[in-house]
């Protein structure tokens, strides 16, 4: 009985072909003690090798995909950013050293897009997270049809950027858009949402807020429901009202979650691209006639694909990457601080 079993077991384990079976089999083999002295050295070597190699084999798909579609492009972009590369002439790359980066630092358009990314990031992320927190708090009460509300909250997130933005373009249309129509109701002059400086930033932010508030609210809600209810009970015994409970129980308990959403939203805000591009309509990559909503992402796209200067676009990509690293480090320091102070 034992030899056909081995014949089956060996090819299977050497090919790593039966995931899930191997660790169990190995464990059982060890548990059984010394089964067959004649073959034990070969088998134990095989099992040891199996124990060592299998985990790597199991996690390898992610790293292979990551390498092919993230790491290689990342390094290739770095290579590009040090060269003069034109979209129409990819094969003739000439060494440019740090010229592309120097070029960026001296370009008004770059600093403008950095400023736009920052301001739009702030006016979209801050209200979005605050509103999400409030909404999650409301949903945390016992509501009739709570599932319905939760699904409704997630629908904007499930809507495609393109569809949502096109609707917003119509809402914000200068001539005959609904928002200007409402403003007119209150006697306010129509705003040229697309071309005004702050109006356009506000409009783009509102699309982001609309899309992501529900998503963040659900994350907060999940964290809130994990807060033990005896904390609230003892707080209310101490005479804390709803607001005090929210401030002194909910918020401190949510701290790690809040930090997580801040990190994710910041990354999202730095890479903001689809909303402003589609909001701009024709030649949207310019981000308005004065680049008033040209984010870093749009600037990169405009340089690389519209103007065709891939070297410079790669330099922008790497600059964005570095900015994100810096933000990451700052956030790490803050979270460490917070943990220490607790």
């Amino acid at each position: 009985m034992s030899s056909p079993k081995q014949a089956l077991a060996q090819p299977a384990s050497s090919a790593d072909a039966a995931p899930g079976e191997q660790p169990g089999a190995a464990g059982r083999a060890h548990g059984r003690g010394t089964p067959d002295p004649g073959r034990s050295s070969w088998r134990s070597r095989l099992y040891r090798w199996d124990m060592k190699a299998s985990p790597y084999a199991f996690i390898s798909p992610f790293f292979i995909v990551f390498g092919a579609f993230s790491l290689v492009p990342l390094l290739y972009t770095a290579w590009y950013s040090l060269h003069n590369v034109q979209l129409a002439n990819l094969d003739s790359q000439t060494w440019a050293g740090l010229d592309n980066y120097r070029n960026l630092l001296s370009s008004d358009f770059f600093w403008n897009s950095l400023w736009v990314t920052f301001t739009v990031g702030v006016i979209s992320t801050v209200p979005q997270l605050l509103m999400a927190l409030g909404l999650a708090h409301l949903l945390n009460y016992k509501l009739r049809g709570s599932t319905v509300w939760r699904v409704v909250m997630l629908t904007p997130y499930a809507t495609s950027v393109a569809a949502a933005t096109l609707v917003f373009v119509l809402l914000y249309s200068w001539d005959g858009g609904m928002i200007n129509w409402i403003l007119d109701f209150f006697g306010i002059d129509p705003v040229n949402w697309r071309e005004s400086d702050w109006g356009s930033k506000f409009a783009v932010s509102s699309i982001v807020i609309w899309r992501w508030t529900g998503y963040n609210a659900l994350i907060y809600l999940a964290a809130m429901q994990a807060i033990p209810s005896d904390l609230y009970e003892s707080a209310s015994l101490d005479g804390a009202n709803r607001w005090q409970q929210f401030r002194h129980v909910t918020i401190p308990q949510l701290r790690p979650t809040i930090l997580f959403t801040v990190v994710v939203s910041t990354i999202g805000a730095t890479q903001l691209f689809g909303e402003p591009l589609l909001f701009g309509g024709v030649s949207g990559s310019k981000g308005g006639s004065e680049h008033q909503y040209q984010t870093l992402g749009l600037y990169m796209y405009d340089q690389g694909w519209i103007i065709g200067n891939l070297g410079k676009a790669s330099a922008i990509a790497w600059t964005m990457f570095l900015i994100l690293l810096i933000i990451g480090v700052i956030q790490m320091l803050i979270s460490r601080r917070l943990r220490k102070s607790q």
Partner: protein
Amino acid sequence: MRTSTRGSRRLMALAAVAALTTGLLAGCAEDSDDGSTNEGGGNGGGGRTTLTVGTFGTFGYKQAGLYDEYMKLNPDITIKENVTTRTDVYWPKVLTRLQAGAGTDDIQAIEVMNITEAVQTQADKFVDLGKEVDKSQWLDWKNAQATTEDGKLIGLGTDIGPMAICYRKDLFEKAGLETDRAKLAEQWKGDWGKYVDLGKQYMKKAPSGTKFVDSASSVYNAALGGGTERYYEKDGTVVWDESDGVKKAWDVAMEVATSDMSAKLKQFDKPWDQGYANGTFATVACPAWMIGYILEKSGDSGKGKWDVAAAPTAANWGGSFLGVPTASKHQKEAIALAKWLTAPEQQAKVFAKQASFPSTPSAYSTLKPAAATTEYFSNAPITQIFSDSAKTIPTQYFGIKDQAINTALTDIGILQVEQKGKSPDQGWDAAAKEIKDVLGQ
């Protein structure tokens, strides 16, 4: 017993993995079959060839039934069109695919603003079509645009964009202006400035909620298309800031932008389409391809209200070419199809469908717009108007970054003046700064 179940479970797992793997591999294999090798790839029709045509916007081949007709004439050919709506998305994609030598369609459309870039940087990626056709069929300047220095023709001309003015007769009447197309053409003949003057007159008695023209940029593009000089000289030097054509067009556009006569729309934008539907502007610079656009966007509400008059100056705006990439697996068949699609008879059929104007003069005598089109545009003799314009279009030279420079002038410079209340000088400076960035100076 226990061992045997374990063994068989293992076998099952092995089989499952094997099945999954083959499935995945088969998936990949199928993909590449679809993408690059069309020959015999599972279509079972005994040597049927699938040709793909890459276009942008609305070329009208499908709409005019040309693909079906060709497939009927050539039963062994199947045609698939891959349409990308916007040129600014289409062209970068084509550029990368051409250079990768893979993923291109068998026929690739090229817009006139990109043709110089194609001629100067991608000529070796396209089949020389000069040997395949009788070049004299096309307008000389059309051929010249797609011809390399050593005489290679990389694209066959499709349509051109001879200029006219489309105007709303009903709005003109309410504003107390002349409505007869011949008399109007006479009023603004020879000078876009006169057209602007008429706009001022219109605005004095403009029907409420309407403006004279859709945008300053459209006047700019129309006027620019009538000059002999654009952004580049024949030898490829950039002269955009000294070009006489640019200056004249800019000045006219500034007159429009700083007055109240523009509806301040951005062309090809959603609100612009709505402007057509709601009739919020009375005129639009009207290259032939615009006729089809108005038909679609203005719809029933504009029927019989639009009319067409000759433009102040003969001008060209837009037009395209069809090229066959050397990466095509079916070059012979693709060349045949490109030749057929751009032949005078077929161009005439596209004109009948959506008024895209042929680049082959021999078709002009046979052109007949669809009855519905003529009726829609108040029985205007559009064939006559566009042919007259086409015959006197000046030869223009395009440059590598023509499109990017044009965008900087219209969507940065003019837009700032028109919508943000900047002065013309400020607008010009902003455009200049942008163009400097575009050219990497």
